[in-house]
Structure formats: C-alpha cells, structure tokens
C-alpha cells in the first residue's frame, strides 16, 4: 500500500551541520503518530519538511507518492505551536477558522452562506460554537488549541499535522486535546504530531517515532519506550515504569545506574516495584 507521507533518505540543515540526517519514514493513511525527542532533535523541522515549508538538502518528501512541489500543495491541515500565534491580532474565532478555507473560498471578501455553515459545523464538532465572535485572546488554552484545530479541519485535509498541541496547557486540557485527536483518528483522519509529554504519548498515541537528528526507533509505545531507546534518543538516563498495562517515563532522579523500574506483585503478595541496575540485577524491592 502506498504511504500517505514518505520521506526517502532526507537530510536537512539550516547551516552546514544537518538537523536531520538520512531520514526514512512512512506514514500510512489512518495512522496516528507522534514524533518524540529532545529539544533541537529536529521534530519541528521534520514537520516543516512534510508541510513543504522547508526543502530537503538531500532526499525527497512524497505525499500520496508525489514529490512535494510548491505548485502542488497537498491538503494538509496544520496546527502550529500556540506560542507562535500573534494573540493581539484583531481576529475573531470565526475569522481564524475561515482562513482554513482560503484555497476554496470565492473571490468576495465575505464568506458565502455555505462557508459560514461549514465554520459553524466544525466549531460545533469541537464544542466551541458559542465562541465564534470572541477575540482569540479571550479564550482558554484548550479553546485556543481547538480554534486552530478547527481551522485545520475545515480545510478537509488528508493529513493533520500538529506541532506540540499539548505544550503550555494544563494536564486536563492536554488530555482533552488528545481525546479529540483520538476521536478524529477513529473517524479516519491521519495525524502526525510532536510532543514532549512522553506519558501522554504513551497513553494516547498508538505509533511513536523517536527522533534525534536520525530516527532512533519507531513503533508502538511498549516497543519504543525502553530505557535503551529513550537513553539513545534523549542522551539521558530514563526510567520506564509499567503498571496495569500502562507505561510511565521518568528522567532518572540521581546518578545511580538504574535501568528500569517494573511494578510487579512482589513475592509475598504486596504491590511493589523492583529497581534494576543496567546489568539486570535487582538491587532492592520496595513495597508500595
């Protein structure tokens, strides 16, 4: 099956040193994937290559099997980082959402009745229809995220690209945003996002791509969230905690050479966790 997004030996750098090196990546229709990695790993640059905002120094980016070209912009909905938005710009929620239809809207400056209906429908779908006339500054972080998600969705994209949609919002809002994305994915939307929130990614996103200039690993969270892969991705010691089928990632709090913490029933029946050194020998068993 032809992938929706294909990066074939892509290398990119802003100067002579590459930010991304020999990237090979396939994203298929209906996938929900997240790029994880430390700051400066090239996550946003990779998104921008897919969006056509940057051009690779080597290799090729294909969407639907066609090489990206400025003349053939694909249908991609893009939600930028909220911190890049000018919140003082005089626009209402509806006006921002209407921007998503700029390619298909008519020549008149005002939206047609049909366009206005579409805007209302997408705002209702994201449960922010009552905010249509509000200025974008007068919204909560979660509402702001939904406005830009609405702008992306109204473009009827094949692919939804989000740059850190959970950054700068509280845990509950982040959870809500990820639930909305999961629902959209269930309805068939292909989604690629970046995130620093590894625990939320492990809980909500079925396919993770660990990136640090190169793709270190990709797969389901339980496959890629291992201390070895995370250590290589973040160049830092990471702990992985497993409980009730869920994964939790934590940066190692001090300098001991811990390898992994596994929450298991401790012999004797009580719940506890076992701390292992990097060579796999248990050093302690602690009851919880």
């Amino acid at each position, binding site marked *: 099956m032809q992938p929706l997004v294909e990066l074939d030996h892509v290398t990119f750098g802003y100067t002579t040193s590459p930010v991304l090196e020999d990237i090979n990546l396939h994203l298929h229709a209906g996938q929900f994937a997240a790029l994880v990695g430390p700051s400066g790993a090239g996550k946003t640059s990779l998104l921008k290559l897919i969006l056509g*905002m940057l051009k690779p120094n080597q290799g090729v980016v294909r969407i639907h099997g066609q090489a990206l070209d400025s003349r053939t912009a694909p249908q991609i909905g893009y939600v930028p980082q909220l911190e*890049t938005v*000018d919140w003082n710009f*005089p*626009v209402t929620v509806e006006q*921002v959402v209407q921007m998503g239809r700029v390619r298909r809207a008519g*020549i008149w*400056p005002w939206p047609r009745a049909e366009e206005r209906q579409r805007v209302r429908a997408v705002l209702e779908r994201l449960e922010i229809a009552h905010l249509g006339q509000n200025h974008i500054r007068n919204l909560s972080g979660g509402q702001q995220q939904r406005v830009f998600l609405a702008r992306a969705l109204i*473009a009827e994209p094949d692919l939804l690209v989000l740059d850190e949609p959970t950054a700068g919002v509280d845990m509950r809002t982040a959870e809500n945003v990820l639930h909305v994305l999961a629902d959209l994915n269930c309805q068939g939307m292909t989604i690629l996002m970046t995130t620093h929130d590894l625990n939320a990614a492990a809980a909500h996103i079925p396919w993770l791509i660990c990136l640090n200039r190169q793709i270190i690993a990709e797969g389901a969270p339980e496959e890629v969230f291992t201390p070895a892969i995370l250590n290589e991705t973040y160049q830092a010691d990471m702990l992985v905690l497993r409980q009730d089928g869920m994964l939790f990632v934590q940066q190692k709090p001090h300098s001991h050479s811990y390898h992994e913490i596994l929450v298991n029933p401790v012999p004797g029946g009580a719940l506890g966790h076992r701390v292992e050194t990097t060579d796999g020998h248990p050093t302690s068993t602690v009851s919880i």
Partner: protein
Amino acid sequence: MDILLQPFQFEFFRNGTLAAVLVGALCGMIGVYIVLRGMSYIGHGLSHAIFGGAVVSFVMAWNFYLGAGIWGFIAALLINQTVRRTKITADAAIGVVTTASFAIGIALISRYRRFTRSFDAALFGNVLGVSQQDVFVVAGVALMVAVIIFFCYKQLLFTTFDAEVAQVYGVRTAWVDTLFALILAATLIASMQILGVTLIAAALVVPAITARLLTDSFNRMILLSTLLGAATGFIGMYISYYIDVASGASIVLLQATVFGIVLLVTALRQRAAQRLIHIHV
C-alpha cells in the same frame, strides 16, 4: 454655512481637499496591514527611498511617477525578501535599504549641483500645489488599491496574520508580498506630493493604531482606519485653511490628537472595567 463653503470657491482648495481625503483614506487602508505586520517604520523608510528614486528620475530625465514608483517597488520587495530569507528583522532591513536609497538621492544632488528643481514639495508636501492631474493620479491609485484589497482580502489577511502557515494552506505568499509591495509603493508615490516624505509615515500608522484601539475585529479596523484617514484629511484641510498652517502638518496633528483622545478614553474605560471586576470579586 457660507463660511464652511467659502474655501471651496478656490480651485486649489477643491483639488487639495479631494486629494487629502483620498490620500487619507488610502493611507488609512494600507496602514492597517503595515501596523499588523509590525512594519510601522516602512512608511517613513520607503518614502525616503522614493525620494532617492525621484532624484534619479530627474537626473535621468525619466517620468517622475514611473521612476520613483519602480524605485519604491524594488525597495519594498528588497525589504520583504531580506526579512523572509535572512535573520535580519524588519526594522533593520527597512533601515538599511531605505537609508541607502535616500543616500543615493543625496549623493546625486550634491554631485549634480546644477539642480533647478526644488525638492521641498517632495519632502514636506504641497497640497496647495495639487493639480487636477495629481487628483486623477491619487484617485486612480486609490481605486487600484481598493480593488486589489477587495479581491485579495482573504489572502492578505492570512498572510498578515501568519505568512508561514498561510503558505501551507495554499496562499502564494510570495505573490501576495509582491502585490503588497506594489500597492505600498503606489500609495507612497501618490501621497508624496500631498503629505511629503516626512509626514507620510504618520498618515500610514496613526489612523490604523487608532482604529486598533477601538476594535478587535479586522474588518472593522480596516473600515475605521479608512474613514478616520479620510475624515482627518478633510477636516485637516479646513484647519489648515483657517489657521494658516501647512496642510500636511495640520492633517497629521489632527490624527495625532484623535489618537491621543481615543487612547485616553480607552485607558479610562479599561480602568473602570477593572474597578468593576474588583467590586464584583
């Protein structure tokens, strides 16, 4: 009533007022995009750059509008491209391109000392010297700019809001920028004779920022800024006639006064609103 109509018996006043209203509206309309792009200094800079172009046109015996217009258009494009393609910010790009262009004008004036033409009108404006032909030029430019803004409204709005993202959504931002550079240069050329190089910047920025204080809606901001520019152009001409001061200066001073009043009123309203919140909390 007769007092109000009295100045209109003079042709120079009729031409001047019509030109001032059109230029005020034009600058008010374009000014919204300039202010929101964070390029408030561009009007000041580009008008200086165009001055360089005007001198070159004179030396080369080219048509003033054509020579200065092409010069201004290239300068605006250079500024846009410098900002887009390099790490240099808008204010620095404007500073380099426009002062270099202005310096070319100064260098040519000092090199060819046999100048017979006075550049006072270009520098300070001379609304009383506006001919019917100048009014037609201003009207033509105003119509062209209004038509372009009308039909490219959505693309201009998206590019001004976030050019990088607009590109992803299919807006040809390079074309939009080029078009904007063209209408900006045309606006400045048309306004130069009326307001002069030194006052254009204020006419571009003041109505737009006043409108911004009054509304959070882009559509209303465009409308308010255009109306404010036209109204201050008209009233400023009257003030200029009756108290005998330079018309460009009276228009800009009136705009600054309106801005000051709006700033004061909005600040007071904000304080009152905050006090209300405190009382309720």
